[in-house]
């Protein structure tokens, strides 16, 4: 079975704090892709990052960073020095190699950044 678990339903932090959103996945495939999407109040899901299962290098993009650990089947997302504009719902997703139709989404984490 393939599954993505985002255990944190809702998180609130004060602006400028760092925050980590957890993502744990389950798959028997050896080759797969992982994604993070952001859904601001406007509703459109915005792509943030894609990682394939062979690339465990962590990635940093400005205030955003991602920690991929195959050993724990986790793909966590950290926002450093959070800002009010980071308030959104964040989705982690898993897609098996060769299955265009399969994108398994977690249930999302709603992040509130308080001014």
């Amino acid at each position, binding site marked *: 079975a393939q599954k993505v678990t985002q255990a944190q339903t809702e998180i609130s932090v004060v602006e400028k704090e760092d925050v980590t959103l957890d993502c744990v996945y389950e798959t028997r495939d050896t080759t797969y892709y992982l*994604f993070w999407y952001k859904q601001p109040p406007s509703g459109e899901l*915005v792509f943030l990052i*894609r990682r*394939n299962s062979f690339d465990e290098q962590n990635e940093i993009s400005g205030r955003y960073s991602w920690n991929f650990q195959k050993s724990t089947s986790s793909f966590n997302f950290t926002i450093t020095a959070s800002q009010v504009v980071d308030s959104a719902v964040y*989705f982690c997703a898993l897609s098996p190699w060769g299955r*265009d139709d399969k*994108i398994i*989404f*977690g249930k999302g984490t709603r992040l509130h950044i308080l001014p």
Partner: protein
Amino acid sequence: DVKVTQSSRYLVKRTGEKVFLECVQDMDHENMFWYRQDPGLGLRLIYFSYDVKMKEKGDIPEGYSVSREKKERFSLILESASTNQTSMYLCASSPINKKAEAFFGQGTRLTVV
């Protein structure tokens, strides 16, 4: 700027009505998707299409059908709307076999009364 455009942001329909949700993408993508998003349930796939006139059922196809007569357009049809179909509907597209990210529309919030 690449785009997936859904025809309506908000819709209110009556129980029993036939409802059409339209989605158009301008990226020449082969794959198109319809998802439903509900609180606490995340995104659930209703239907997927990988080519014109081709469709596959997703996880929750009951009560829905789709149409893809042109590559850029993917329509979701509620044959007889019911109150339990009140939800946010999201359309997405992606290129085939490239494992690129999916691009999403802005969503249609449908209320069935």
